[in-house]
């Protein structure tokens, strides 16, 4: 049975994999031979939290930010399809904790908190993560063994995803970093100002 057939059996083409109870999800993965569920994977609430964090890490300024560059969809896909189950569980626990923590402080979910509180919470998570060595690891474990699950603190993990998602997007590469697909020549000594976008005047 292929995945599409199975989805029909389970109740139509629009069935949400994320909504399945864990044992059915396991059965689905087993039956289809797929290692992982595919996006859409987040619930609306989870997606809202990821969007809020992405927007705080790389906001729109004189160029588009992470949200406009599609980073939320990117993170959802990486978490759903690319991460190992251990990485995925760790990330999802961190995401859940973000909302629980904010609820405890202000009785709202993270996405609905005041910006000043959001910033303070992220700064706190960053400090915690830095104490755990989070800032010394680059997230994409490109050369890793499959079993080498990347275990980064949540802040550094989601920030690494935002960075990778943004700076590998067409917006991030071309508008923000002035990436040229075909440079056409090499000059080993140009002014930085010729090849980078300046920070806005206000800074």
């Amino acid at each position, binding site marked *: 049975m292929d995945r599409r057939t199975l989805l029909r059996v389970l109740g139509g083409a629009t069935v949400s994999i994320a909504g399945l109870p864990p044992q059915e999800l396991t059965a689905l993965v087993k039956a289809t031979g797929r290692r992982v569920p595919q996006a859409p994977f987040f619930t609306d609430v989870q997606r809202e939290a990821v969007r809020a964090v992405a927007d705080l890490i790389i906001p729109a300024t004189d160029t588009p930010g992470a949200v406009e560059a599609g980073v939320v969809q990117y993170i959802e896909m*990486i978490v759903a399809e690319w991460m190992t189950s251990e990485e995925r569980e760790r990330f999802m626990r961190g995401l859940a904790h973000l909302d629980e923590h904010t609820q405890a402080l202000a009785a709202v979910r993270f996405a609905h908190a005041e910006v000043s509180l959001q910033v303070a919470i992220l700064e706190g998570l960053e400090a915690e993560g830095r104490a755990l060595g989070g800032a010394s690891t680059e997230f994409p474990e490109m050369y890793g063994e499959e079993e080498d699950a990347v275990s980064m603190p949540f802040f550094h993990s989601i920030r690494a995803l935002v*960075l990778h998602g943004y700076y590998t*997007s067409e917006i991030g590469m071309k508008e923000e970093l002035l990436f040229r697909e075909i*440079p*056409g*020549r090499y000059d*080993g*000594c140009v002014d930085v100002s010729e090849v980078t976008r300046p*920070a*806005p005047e206000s800074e």
Partner: protein
Amino acid sequence: MGRTETYDAIVVGSGISGSWAAKELTERGLRTLVLEAGGPVGPADYVMTTYPWNLRHRGRRDRARQSKERYVQRHCYACDAWSEKFFIRDDENPYTTARGTDFKWIRARQVGGRSLLWARHVYRWSDLDFEANARDGHGVDWPIRYADIAPWYSHVERFIGVTGQAEGLAHLPDAEFLPPMPLNCVESGFREGLTDAYGGDRLLTIGRCAVLTVPHNGRAACHYCGTCERGCTTHSYFSAQAATLPAAAATGRMTLRPWSVVHSVIYNPATGRADGVRVIDADTHDALEFRARVVFLCASALESTRILLNSRTNRWPDGLANSSGELGRNLMDHTMGGGADGTIGGYDDKWEYGRRPHGIYLPRFRNVKDQHPDFLRGYAYQGGASRSGWERGNAMAGFGAAYKHALRRPGPWEFHLYGFGECLPSPSNYVELDPETVDKWGIPVVRVHCQWGENERRALEDMTVQAAEMLEAIGATDIVPFTEDNPPGLTIHEMGTARMGRDPGSSVLNGWNQSWDVPNLFVTDGACMTSSANQNPSITYMALTARAANHAVDLIDRGEL
């Protein structure tokens, strides 16, 4: 057995060596069959203009799939989400290693072989290298000297196009250079600082590479996109597809047969010659035979030796053309990964435009004039100066608008020195056929016995120390020395196992890459190497191949073959 076709020459392999054999043999008039184990690859398969945003996971490797299909290949930096399709499937092409040892065998079975993927650095050898074995007694003496190969280096370089800077070094002879790519400002400063600190004994120069800086032989100049291993649709670096195979095809005398896995060489005991080769069709698994007057094995060092080991005869039960007993022995690779990184101040307002496809070269300085007390032979560095990009955001504190804008500018200049060292030939490093393991086509695989020796380890340590000292001497700060523990094979300069020599009793091939035992059999890929030097070896394979092919045709023309 199926039908038999007859040619003037058979070339096994279509990569760097095989495509050169094909070009030279066909241009000299021989109807040549080129047998390639893998499938066709061409510009339509290149992913040069595939950008991260075009890929579903933006270039992240599929770790689970690679661990099933390319569990060895993935250790190569180039086996990424773009280019992994150009590497073999390890599950179809197994090999084994002796207990307690590791050897990473990085391979590409496709038309053009690894020429699509190579790092393109090309450095001539000199008599410092060709005399090395005779000088210190490791291995046997090379049957040739620099004067024998120099015209063939020129022949090859003029065709492929080599960018580089003439420096007049006796031990790293200049090539037929196209204009060099420039050093960046930090590298220029390093070059001057190094000369100040070490006199004329140490030199930093721009890498010598088979990349075009001007249009050359109908191929376009480099456009500096920076990711050559994805394939180059403007043919701006040397690959078999871009240069040698089209030249061979243009003669009208080449027949290229992909999906042709060579099983063994057909030996004729009555004539003492090779009649041709046995092939298994990679797709249908049909057994086929092809015959020719001369056979060139250019399947890559270990594949060519594997074919010979699998061509057992009554006379040579341990592999064809093995009277010397040296077939399979003296496997070498370069060590790599002694080096250091350091931060360079003073050029904060400067950066690079364009992505240069190579870096610097710091030629060998050890054991050139006098003998180092701790190790024989030498090493050289590659590397260069660069500034980090957005990735450093992972190690920075903060987030938000100021963080985003800070990442628009590059990080500090860093200089990287990464060493590659010579490996001594040793009979204890060898390959044999594994009696218990066969590949997808039922052919016995090789079992590799290979470990670094004490000399390699000592040179590797010296690479680290000297890299750090040089960085210090030119004023770098935050110097981070490193000594990586890379297994043999991973440098992808595997060579030896069917060495050339002066004596049929101690070598497999003579000074023309010709089998001592089977005169119409030539081996011209890395298998033929008698020592390893420390230079990237491909240009020497090309020159030896062109030289051997022309010699074979000379012999035929004179009625001697």
